């Protein structure tokens, strides 16, 4: 069974095609990164995979079911910059949210133990009782990753996990993602993610160019090479 299956996916927004004929599959425990220019449809694709948006045409399966049906298998990591910092909420409160489920109103002892274990693994246990406001960008992003992982997901989907974070924090987060033993889809504007052990690269610029393989064997797409990688690779490495 594939972890993710996308077949002939189209998405139209206000009479304009944002995504056209996207096709790819992802196997269990594979690491895929979705890259591409701003406004190219990366976030739209992620929101379709999460079940927040319905495709105009085509089919999306997460572990053989629709994203909505299999949502609880997904660990979602949004951008840390999306949230209000004024809410009186601690790191522990946020991480525990990953243990919320239908029909359950209170956290069990096991839920709290799992949350502490994840906080330790991510080396943010000492911030457990701090207000989220008092953490750095990198630490806040780690808290959101911990919240996703504490639900023991089969697949984790992340939206720009390294944005608005200092270089040291970016490295720590990319190391963490690289070493996770579950299926991963990471939307990133940061081209440095290609230096990581990714199994698949989806370059989204309306149409997806899916590439499978080692890190620097990048998609042979003219726009991708000329616009995205201009400062990143030498021209002859671009392969066109």
């Amino acid at each position, binding site marked *: 069974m594939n972890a993710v299956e996308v077949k002939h996916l189209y998405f139209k927004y206000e009479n304009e095609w944002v995504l056209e004929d996207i096709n790819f599959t992802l196997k269990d425990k594979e690491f895929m990164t979705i890259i591409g220019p701003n406004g190219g449809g990366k976030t739209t694709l992620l929101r379709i995979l999460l079940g927040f948006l319905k495709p105009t045409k085509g089919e999306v399966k997460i572990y053989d079911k629709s994203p909505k049906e299999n*949502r609880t298998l997904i660990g979602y990591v949004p951008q840390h910059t999306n949230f209000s910092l004024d809410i*009186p*909420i601690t790191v522990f*409160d946020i991480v525990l*949210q*990953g243990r919320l*489920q239908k029909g359950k*109103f209170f*956290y069990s002892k096991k839920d709290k133990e799992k949350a502490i274990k994840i906080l330790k693994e991510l080396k943010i246990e000492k911030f457990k009782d701090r207000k989220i406001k008092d953490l750095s960008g990198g630490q806040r992003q780690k808290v959101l990753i911990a919240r996703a992982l504490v639900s023991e997901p089969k697949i984790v989907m992340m939206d720009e996990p390294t944005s608005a974070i200092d270089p040291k924090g970016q490295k720590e987060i990319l190391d963490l993602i690289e070493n996770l033993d579950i299926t991963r889809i990471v939307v990133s504007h940061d081209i440095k993610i290609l230096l990581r052990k990714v199994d698949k690269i989806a370059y989204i610029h309306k149409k997806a160019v899916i590439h499978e393989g080692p890190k620097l064997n990048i998609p042979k797409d003219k726009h991708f090479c000329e616009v995205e990688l201009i400062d990143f690779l030498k021209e002859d490495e671009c392969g066109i």
Partner: protein
Amino acid sequence: MWDLISNSVYAGLFLSIAIGIIGSLIVINKATSITGSIAHGSFGGIGLGIYLGINILLSTTIFTLILALILSIITIFYKHRADSLIGVIWALGMSVGIIFLSLSPEYNADAISYLFGNILLIEKNDLLIMGIVDIVLIISIIFLYHRFLAMSYDIEFLEIRGINAKLLYTYFLILTSLTIVMSVRAIGIILILALFTIPPLIAEKFTKRFYQMIVLSGILSALFVTGGIALSYYFDLAPTPIIVIIAATGLFLSIWKR
């Protein structure tokens, strides 16, 4: 003296429980304009009740619950235009109220008392309603505390966890409506918003956890309301504006102090 103000002090304490819970939720959900819209819109229910000669509490409850459902749909499905549409509902509810009042055969001083409220005129029946709403709020916050907190922080994540966040948000607006209905006679439509938001805004600055914010804003409300009742009794002034002025002074002091 106690006999004269006892009902208003009890009303103040019942109100404080409601403000602690619903006020804190309103502040952390950034739902101030929605609350203003329900509160002002509720005047439609008051006008309708007076025109038809039916129980005003009943007509206002039904009217505000309908407003809450409309506002829930607007917030969930028309997010990009929510701000303007909330303003429209605000004005529409008040307009409906004014039209029904002008169609009523006699001028009704009761309608004006709902606009400004008077906690010193609270009766036993009002206290009973306040008590019932408080019980509903307390039970709701005990069972839904974690869901409400998650909704306020990241509503989409709640959906990912398989919980119906849209339904939860609608329930939050229904609770807000009930709290407004129970408070209208005591505080009045026009100043409800200030009293629902000032104590939580102060509490938010001094607390680390959401339950602490609920408790602190409840305590602050009790202080502001009882202080306001005492001052208005001694100086023979309208109580609600005094309560709001004390609360606003507290807010400015808290900003200055931080």
